[in-house]
């Protein structure tokens, strides 16, 4: 089992001692996280690492999940999408059912704690059944600055019943009557997706994926959706390919939605005409493969046009890679322009920066090293633990 001490070799000097000192101040206090599930990326991925570590530090940390029927899950999914600004149908009946299911959840779950952190939309209305004791925080991991009006009107009265809300970036927030704190998400440097990996292992995994390492690799990891603009990446690669003999690897998950299927079909068509374009449809748990691909890459691209926080950039920086990223979501807050990579606004800008880096290999090394240190300070789970402990201290004084 991984303990907090194991992070001494990856975190900045003094960080683990700081965490332990913070934890001493809240030893024994009950810290409860509630989310809609234990699997997948995003909030669940961070909690899988953070909750055992918070317990290891002496807090009474636990994690509960809400349950429900298919209507509950589809309504919560639609509500999340509308909170992110997408148009969806939300009927009064479905919303009533969603609230009712959380009322039932509240009866089943042990919700007494010094601090209850409720993650995202599925459990959000549990607040209506909060016990008298304890402080409650709504943790929002997505951008809800421009929600659909109906979704916001429905959820806002619930959110205002919390003691505070926590967002990943100030620009992801919307006005509420409660304090809004800002805590960026983080990656776990000891997980399969981010742990150190010997070159032999990298080479073996890439062989297994059918990706030769005989020339520089440009890599984008992300869903095959228009939001992550993989087709724009192909167009940028074509501009680069006129001058550099590189290989483009697009790795990600497909999903069954129409736009995803169409995007993947177009990518496969592009790959059929150019053997240096490799499209890898990976399962959701392909952490080791993603780790190996990021380590084998020369430059990592994250050319999203719509994005949440987008931790892919932090993952790449942790592996010492310069990142060329779109100006979307949290990417411009992760990539320090001209220091750890570049943010770009267009296909041409992406191609220009890729060529600029390929033409200046010393920049690739320098930005990669700066990126790793930036990730070490700002985007590791040790920083997230520090923030959670500070929040617990601040709100339960």
């Amino acid at each position, binding site marked *: 089992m991984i303990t907090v001490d194991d992070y001494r070799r990856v975190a900045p000097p003094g960080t683990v*001692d700081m965490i332990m000192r913070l934890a001493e101040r809240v030893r024994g206090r009950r810290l409860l996280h509630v989310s809609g599930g234990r699997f997948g990326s995003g909030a669940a991925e961070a909690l899988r690492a953070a909750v055992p570590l918070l317990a290891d530090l002496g807090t009474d940390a636990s994690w509960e999940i809400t349950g429900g029927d298919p209507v509950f899950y589809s309504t919560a999914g639609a509500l999340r999408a509308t909170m992110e600004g997408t148009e969806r149908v939300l009927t009064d009946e479905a919303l009533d059912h969603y609230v009712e299911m959380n009322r039932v959840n509240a009866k089943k779950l042990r919700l007494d704690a010094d601090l209850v952190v409720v993650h995202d939309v599925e459990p959000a209305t549990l607040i209506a059944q909060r016990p008298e004791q304890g402080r409650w925080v709504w943790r929002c991991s997505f951008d809800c600055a421009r929600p659909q009006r109906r979704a916001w009107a429905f959820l806002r009265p619930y959110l205002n019943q919390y003691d505070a809300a926590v967002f990943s970036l100030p620009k992801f927030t919307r006005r509420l009557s409660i304090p809004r704190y*800002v805590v960026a998400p983080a990656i776990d440097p000891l997980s399969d997706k981010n742990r150190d990996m010997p070159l032999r292992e990298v080479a073996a995994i890439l062989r297994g994926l059918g990706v030769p390492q005989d020339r520089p690799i440009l890599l984008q990891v992300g869903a095959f959706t228009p939001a992550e603009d993989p087709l724009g990446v192909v167009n940028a690669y074509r501009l680069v390919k006129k001058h550099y003999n590189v290989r483009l690897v697009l790795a990600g998950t497909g999903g069954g939605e129409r736009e995803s299927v169409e995007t993947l079909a177009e990518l496969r068509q592009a790959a059929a005409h150019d053997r240096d374009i490799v499209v890898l449809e990976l399962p959701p748990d392909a952490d080791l493969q993603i780790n190996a691909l990021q380590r084998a890459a020369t430059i990592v691209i994250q050319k999203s046009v719509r994005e949440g926080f987008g931790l892919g950039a932090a993952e790449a920086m942790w592996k010492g890679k310069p990142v060329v990223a779109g*100006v979307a979501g949290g990417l411009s807050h992760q990539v320090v322009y001209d220091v750890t990579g570049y943010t770009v606004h267009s296909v041409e800008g992406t191609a220009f920066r890729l060529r600029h880096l390929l033409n200046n290999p010393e920049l690739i090394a320098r930005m990669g090293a700066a990126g790793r240190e930036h990730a070490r300070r700002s985007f590791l789970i040790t920083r997230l633990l520090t923030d959670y402990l500070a929040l617990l201290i601040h709100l339960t004084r």
Partner: protein
Amino acid sequence: MSDATARAPFQFIGCVELRQALDHRATDERELLERLEDAPAGSVFYHTHGYFLRHRPITTAYGNDFAAWVAVHVRDQVLAERLAVINPFESATLEDLREELVSVVHDHLLRLPSVPRVEFGEPFHFQQSHIVEVPLGPGATTLAEFRAGLAEVDASAIYFHMVEARTRLGRRSGDFAEWLRGSLDLPDLAERIERIDAYMTSLERVRARVLSLVDAALEGPGAGVGSGSA
């Protein structure tokens, strides 16, 4: 070499910054001016002094968040330069600092035919922070113990004792100088540490400068006499 024992030990304190989003935001330089006038003093502190806590691994290219936003998002290099050169450590109070920032933006706008605004970048979101203090290690009672502790502590302790203590907690000399002067009776060393310029550098560099001054004092009388600044 100073081998005096302090009446009260020095306790190193690290800090964690809990960030809070505010309702103020700006999409052009006039809005920046107006919000700067209204924002809580804690927000002015966060975006100026706090810059040095958050940007420690990477060169602090702009000196404060306002200059960084104007340069990167508004792309007005002239105002960015004028804001970047404002040294927050030279202002006696946060209200003095606010006034200086406001007057620079105001003067800049007077010279322009139109107000520069964000076209392809992001608005400026005002924030403030709550500092959670974390006592670190055993207290130091001699200069040698102080030196040993200073070399080891988390860099946030340098920020807390040199920046937070001076600006928000009203201890104008900073905690290091105050303790060295008051508890170890080392006024010359205290004054040299007080003169260290913490602007546009990293916390690690400030730590190194304090350590070199302390080393000089430990080596003997008269050693290390000279400027404490870089």
